[in-house]
């Protein structure tokens, strides 16, 4: 299949449109089958991906408005491959474990639309196509939060939409400016990323553009102080919305840093390591504290997401293969783990209609399977070795250690503070006597919930013990990226800080 990427993008779109014709009763089965096919297709993509090649593969090019440099230009490398697979997998798991019955048809169609945009963002190599998918992803999410959310759903949905939209408009201006510069240098218009990579910008221009893109990505990640939309969105969104938001949509921001900021503005990225890392450290420590102060279980996990994203940003700006590979792996890890944790919160919310931890206590005795899976995910979240959470966190921190040991030490407090809020959550919820009479009769996980959660547990342990199949393709692409940045960098500081791996040097 030459056009596998187009198939991946448009199959859910067509399926979603056809889904309008499917009747309400069979929509669930329909949604699951579509998502399964999509997931299998993405696995096929992985199977036929050449791990040794760090460059873009499965490239598709189709002119849309060539005079203006806008083309339908797709391709993936190790960096985006696994995020695509994760997006299709999380969508599948989200649909499988849906417990909503109200307007199910609309919900499933929205989820399929969302899948289109998620896959589209990560496979686009044309800035305008990327931007289109990026913005379109807001629409189904807005609808999911606004239609199936909690009490303050409208406020949360609007805030989510306007906030991220504002940021991406600034990014769009940045993109147009890059295209303008490209035009003035080469005489033709182009929005193709590969063309933009070749563009060597003066440092002063890079600095402005860096912040323009930064704003768009930072709001999406979300980075402190642009993070306040996230707790509302998570607090109000239905379970499936939170799962996809945390697992995939946030990754768009951190992915953007790797895909745009680093290779396009290597000098500016190096010049701004300190401010960005400072923000990342604030994210890590400050949001970990805020998470500890929460009384609502879902908010703890929402804030913990921000804290973990801090580690990802830190790894991205490590400017060496260890750190960037780590940060991409951590994106996957955080996607799986926070997705699972949101699913778990959904499980208890479906049963008790509350997320307040004070209402729980002693659940380990009542729901042992639930407690077990929660425990595994918790340990993965705090970065226990042999779970998926450790590898990304370790590599990100190890990578950034090369830049600044002191900052890494500060960021490393995440392993302590993470344990503090997660363990106190676990203690409040699962330990102690069962204080609430209502909780004594709770039923343990049913087969539908297990079907969603068990695969995630398997992945958490598999990739924790044997991450090589995933790590190697990522690493090869990252090594290529780093050596490209090193060659492109103009300032001596940037050349000194961007560290090309020994193996890359030897290959040359």
């Amino acid at each position, binding site marked *: 299949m030459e056009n596998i990427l187009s198939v991946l993008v448009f199959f859910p779109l067509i399926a979603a449109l056809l889904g309008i014709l499917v009747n309400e009763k069979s929509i669930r089965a329909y949604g699951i089958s579509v998502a399964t096919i999509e997931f299998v297709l993405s696995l096929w993509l992985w199977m036929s991906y050449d791990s040794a090649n760090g460059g873009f593969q499965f490239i598709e090019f189709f002119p849309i408005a060539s005079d203006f440099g806008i083309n339908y230009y797709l391709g993936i490398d190790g960096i985006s491959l696994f995020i695509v697979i994760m997006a299709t997998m999380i969508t599948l798991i989200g649909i499988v474990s849906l417990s909503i019955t109200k307007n199910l048809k609309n919900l499933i169609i929205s989820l399929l639309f969302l899948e289109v945009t998620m896959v589209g963002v990560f496979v686009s190599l044309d800035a305008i196509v990327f931007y289109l998918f990026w913005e379109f992803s807001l629409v189904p999410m807005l609808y999911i939060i606004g239609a199936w959310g909690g009490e303050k759903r409208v406020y949360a949905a609007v*805030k989510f939409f306007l*906030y991220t939209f504002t940021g991406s408009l600034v990014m769009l201006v940045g993109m147009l400016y890059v295209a303008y510069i490209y035009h003035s240098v080469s005489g033709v218009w182009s929005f193709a990323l590969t063309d933009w990579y070749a563009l060597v910008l003066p440092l002063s221009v890079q600095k402005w553009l860096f912040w323009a893109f930064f704003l768009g990505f930072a709001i999406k990640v979300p980075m*402190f*102080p642009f*993070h*306040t*939309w996230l707790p509302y969105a998570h607090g109000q969104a239905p379970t499936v919305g939170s799962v996809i938001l945390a697992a995939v949509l946030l990754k768009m921001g951190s992915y953007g840093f790797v895909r745009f900021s680093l290779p396009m503005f290597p000098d500016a990225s190096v010049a701004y390591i300190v401010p960005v890392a400072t923000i990342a450290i604030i994210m890590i420590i*400050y949001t970990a*504290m*805020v998470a*500890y*102060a*929460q009384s609502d279980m879902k908010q703890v996990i929402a804030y913990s997401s921000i804290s973990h994203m801090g580690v990802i940003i830190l790894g991205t700006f490590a400017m*060496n*293969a*260890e750190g960037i*590979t*780590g940060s991409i792996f951590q994106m996957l890890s955080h996607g799986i783990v926070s997705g699972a944790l949101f699913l778990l919160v959904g499980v208890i919310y479906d049963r008790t209609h509350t997320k307040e931890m004070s209402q729980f206590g*002693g659940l*380990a*005795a009542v729901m*042992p*399977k639930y407690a*077990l899976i929660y425990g595994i995910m918790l*340990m993965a979240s*705090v970065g*226990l*070795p*042999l779970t998926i959470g*450790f*590898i990304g966190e*370790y*590599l990100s*921190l*190890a990578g950034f*250690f090369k830049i600044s*040991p002191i900052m*890494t030490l500060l960021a*490393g407090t995440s*392993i*302590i503070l993470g*344990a*503090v809020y997660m*363990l*106190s959550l676990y*203690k409040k919820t*699962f*330990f*102690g*006597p069962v204080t609430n009479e209502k909780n004594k009769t709770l039923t343990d996980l049913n087969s539908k919930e297990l079907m969603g959660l068990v695969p995630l547990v398997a992945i958490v342990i598999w990739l924790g*013990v*044997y*991450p*090589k199949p995933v790590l*190697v393709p990522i*690493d090869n692409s*990252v*090594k290529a990226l780093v050596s490209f940045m090193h060659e492109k960098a103009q300032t001596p500081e940037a050349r000194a800080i961007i560290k090309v*791996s*020994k193996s890359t040097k030897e290959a040359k």
Partner: protein
Amino acid sequence: METLVYTALFAPLVSSLFAALFGMTPKRQFVGIVTSLLLFVSFVSSALLLDYVMEFGSIHVTMMDWIVAGDMSVPFGFNVDQVTAVMMTVVTLVSTVVHIYSNGYMEHDKGFNRFFSYLSAFVFSMMVLVMSDNFLGLFIGWEGVGVCSWLLIGFWYHKEDVGRDVNPSISPAWAANEAFIMNRIADLGMLVGIFLIYWNIGSLQYDVVFSHLDGLSHGMLVAIGIFLFIGAMGKSAQFPLHTWLADAMEGPTPVSALIHAATMVTAGVYLVIRANPLYDMIPEVGYFIAALGTFVAIFAASMALVNRDLKRIIAYSTLSQLGYMFAAAGLGAYWVALFHLAAHAFFKALLFLGAGNVMHAMHDELDIFKMGGLKKIMGWTYAYMGVASLALAGIWPLAGFYSKDTILEVAFNEHTYGIWFILWLTAGLTAFYSFRLVFLTFWSDSRYKEFGFHPHEVQKYVLWAMAPLAILAVVFGWYKDSFMEFVTRTLPLYEMSEHTHHMVGVLIAVTTLVAVGGIVVAYLMYSRRLKRNEKIEKSLPYRVLSNQYYIPIFYEKAFSKPYAELSDIAWKEIDMQVVDATVDGIAHLVEESGDGARGMQTGNLSDYLKWMAFGVIALAVLAVFVAMKS
């Protein structure tokens, strides 16, 4: 030989997974039996490996790659050399005994199967810790034992939080979290140490690292040494990260015997022993380790003097003995530290298991003031605990005598007389509190009758299971010379000076004297009946000691509470009132300016015309200005 290595390593994992299959079902006796058997298999493999290593030297196997990114390549590799073989044998032996013992101890517990699953998982993690051939592999085990310790301390998670005055550990769940978080603080230090090693040497394999140490600056070596030791401080509960160990006694007693006495807490000592080429190059850090160990030795012993909680006394004595081990390791006598580690594992596990028997007999009562006279009923347990206490006190010819005495000789030999003196004094205190415990529990008046207890001896097979530990607690010391010969094939040999050789007789006499003295004092004070002295119990030093120098309360006041309050401020004041309010403020600004401007839209034509005229005039004025300027 690879098969043996993998058998020794993975038998506990298989055992854990097997028990986990039945984790949510009611008690199945065969779970206990199968796991014990698998652990025994692991022990036999370890013993065979020990034998193999003794004859042919170390074995190295690499299973597969783990993390490969950038220039970092960390495999799952295992190296069985002399030190590892000793550790493996000690760990699996004590584990096997504890597994068999737990069949009896946990007999009526509804989490029987779950318990064995956790316990075996712990053994697996511990084996990874000692067998790994690189620092990151060690870190896997390091964190793994931490999690298992968390699970096992919090095993009776259903208990409620109570005040510190009722139970100083608050609740099992609380103690478990405390242990995990304290260890995490230390783990950060260790992780930084690992990062330093990686970026300065480019590898995490022990052999590569230790052969490249020469190329590093002295300052860098000191930094690595300190950060690794911070990791060791957490796991081995050294001051100021010691509070979790006493609280960890909330776990079932077999757990205390295995994890919090014999194996996990010695991981820190193992790390220092393992990194001996590093610490040999930085004697000032070694001296600091020795000084801290010495301080912890007497510090912990002092708290044990007045405590009334059976298990806490033994926990403090563990802490104190860990101090001895660090003192030896810090002074460069690594093999002595390892020797004491092994000897301590045997007699301390025995002591804890004996304490478990007593608890069992007394229906989980831990206050030794409520016991007494149990030797008539629990003869075997009395014998075991007596032997263990004698070994702990360092009485000839038991294991503790040889190991502790050698540590004191080392301290003397290094001319660190301060350390020697404090350790010597601690030896006396150790003898005193150990026998205070023995006398108050087994001798003196049978106070338990007042409280309506009906003690009984435990099952026969449990007593038999404890026998290997008892035998080793007696005879292990006799093999000091062959032990030394064996482990110094990898560890540096420690030579006593001529001067010390002459003094050995005197040193032994002095040490034995203080130990015997401690026992005699305990005998005089506690052997007949419990005499409580209100005045002493109300005095300041007594209260300071029984409240653990008020350190837990200080930690709560200085760290936990302020952190919670600060978190609350961060959320309610900063996040909601400043950050989010700013965002909403901008939104409101836009909304209100629009709302304000809406007033213009009166719908009245003449108003519009007025605005239009105003606009025309404004434009005209602007045009005039522009015209005048140009």
